[in-house]
């Protein structure tokens, strides 16, 4: 619509956009090179724009580590079980709330939405989990945040937009509400289910605080916590104990910088690989979320 003259202003805009993107791409690229570098290069530091020398020893050490695998297992367990069960129960509650004839619907909506604005806080929530005997269980990673009020409101709005007539014909055919929900409503709601499922899955994958406070058994640590212990607490103990078991790794080529970088890549690999494909679902999801209830 406007002449495509490449003015000075436009050049500045393009330059700034490239600069921002470059800061993100370079950060990952540098880290990737770091993870592939032998220790004499990794400890010297500086910006690594290309791999000066390549070694896979950092990765061999990380992959040979028992806690990384346990972390993967635990993260996958909590992500799979958490996403599926939370999605189902959130949708089921949202379906009930979408029915205008459900008794005290306004009250129940308020009952749920209120928790978005006010909470008991860290300590009382911790004490509930503790008193229920959930410390050191997988349940403590899933149950405390089981149903998100926000997701439920979004799903309720979606269900409300579905035509009531479909359900009426099913009711006449003798189907119960639960059957209508599982066999009619859920298949009709794939777009919203996919969006919320992705939110839940990424949330579980990235979640770390609940494990930090509820789990002390290190065989139940998730990837984020294993990573946190290696990187932030700086405890190399996790990696050191495996050194004995993993003789293949050459001590001279492994450095703490390289190991940390390799850990970051190993833990974020699924997100980095999957992200380009699911990105558009998230963008759609934001638009759904911005619709008001």
């Amino acid at each position, binding site marked *: *619509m*406007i002449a*495509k003259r490449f003015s000075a*202003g436009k050049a500045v805009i*393009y330059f700034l*956009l*490239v600069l*921002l*993107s470059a*800061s*993100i791409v370079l*950060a990952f690229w540098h*880290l990737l090179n770091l993870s592939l570098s032998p220790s004499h290069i990794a400890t010297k*530091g500086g910006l690594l724009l290309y791999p000066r020398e390549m070694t896979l020893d950092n990765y061999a050490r990380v992959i040979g580590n028992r806690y990384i695998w346990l972390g993967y297992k635990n993260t996958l367990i909590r992500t799979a079980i958490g996403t599926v069960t939370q999605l189902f*129960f959130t949708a*089921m*509650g949202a379906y*009930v709330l979408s029915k205008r*004839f*459900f*008794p*005290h619907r306004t009250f*129940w909506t308020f*009952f*749920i*939405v209120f*928790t*978005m604005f*006010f*909470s*008991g*806080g*860290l*300590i*009382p929530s*911790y*004490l*509930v989990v503790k008193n*229920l005997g959930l410390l050191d269980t997988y349940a403590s990673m899933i*149950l405390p945040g089981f*149903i998100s009020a926000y997701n439920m*409101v979004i799903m309720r709005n979606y269900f409300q937009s579905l035509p009531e007539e479909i359900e009426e014909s099913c009711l006449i055919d003798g189907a119960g*509400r*639960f059957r209508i929900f599982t066999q009619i409503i859920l298949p009709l709601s794939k777009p919203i289910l996919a969006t919320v499922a992705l939110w839940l899955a990424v949330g579980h994958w990235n979640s770390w*605080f609940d494990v930090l406070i509820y789990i002390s058994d290190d065989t139940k640590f998730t990837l*984020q916590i294993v*990573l*946190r212990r290696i*990187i*932030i607490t700086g405890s190399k103990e996790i990696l050191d104990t495996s050194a004995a078991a993993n003789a293949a790794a050459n001590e001279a080529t492994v450095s703490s*910088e390289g190991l*940390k970088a390799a850990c*970051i890549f190993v833990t974020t690999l699924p997100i*980095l690989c999957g*992200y380009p494909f699911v*990105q558009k679902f*998230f963008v759609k999801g*934001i638009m759904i979320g*911005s619709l*008001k209830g």
Partner: protein
Amino acid sequence: MSASDFRIGPRNRQNPLLRFLRSFVGYKRHLTLTLMFLPVVVYFVTFKYVPMGGIIIAFKDYKIKQGILGSAWSQPLFANFIKAFNTPTFARSVTNTLAISGLKLLFGFPAPIILALMLNEVVHERFKKAIQTITYLPHFLSWVVLAGMFQQLLSPNNGAVNAVLQRVFRMKDSIYFLGDNRYFRGTLIVTDIWKNVGWSSILYLATIAGIDPMLYEAATVDGATRLQCTRHITLPSLAPTIVVMLILSVGSIMDAGFDQVFNLYNTAVYQTGDIIDTYVYRYGLGDMKYSLATAVGLFKNVIAFVLVVVTNMIAKRISGSGIW
């Protein structure tokens, strides 16, 4: 008999109490739906409302052995609050929370708007898509991962950022971004923008996409430049979204970003980086001062609650419809 009595329909003639009790029959009539809703109620009661009740330990001398109900009330009732307010680290955490949130509002809030406006000027679709894909990415990584990245990139000894500053910009000393009180807040602001600017721009981009192209055509015919179009068409069209988002950001000013601060800070920068949430965590779960930490948490939550409710009301009035 007054005239108003005749206006009441037959259904409404019942006693209000009776009508209220009658409404419970609906649960039996829609028994399947009631059963389907039951897990939701159980969840919210157990994990949301019971903890709200647990707040009473802020007014007690909570002892684990005696339990929440068995522990004695504190003397005076607000003893935990008074004790907390008198520690110098509490005042520091409030100041830091407001300072960090304020700076994030000042710099972090306009950033996605500027990014959206810049992306709107891009005429090459593939270039635009690429920039969007890249800038959205950090949003999907946890602060644990990003803290690991920044720790390496910003290291004063062999970090890439200091290397660039010294070699390209000829700076003499390396900067300890994460361990120096002069730089820590700035580092928080910049890394927060770096993580979220792309993702937050989506909402503004969508609003821009919804602007009637006729407006631009008419303006161009009248001889308006791109800059004039931005100033007189795009920005006014974005204004309602900007105002609502701004008000909502003000509402969450008590949240300075626990995940970020907790993973990036260390004892050297408590002076400028210790926020209320990290304070509650350290005192509560670290030192097991449950009652004190709950009191501080309650202090924060009440202020945050009032702020959110008030700002939502304002947002609702301005936009005609709030977020909820």
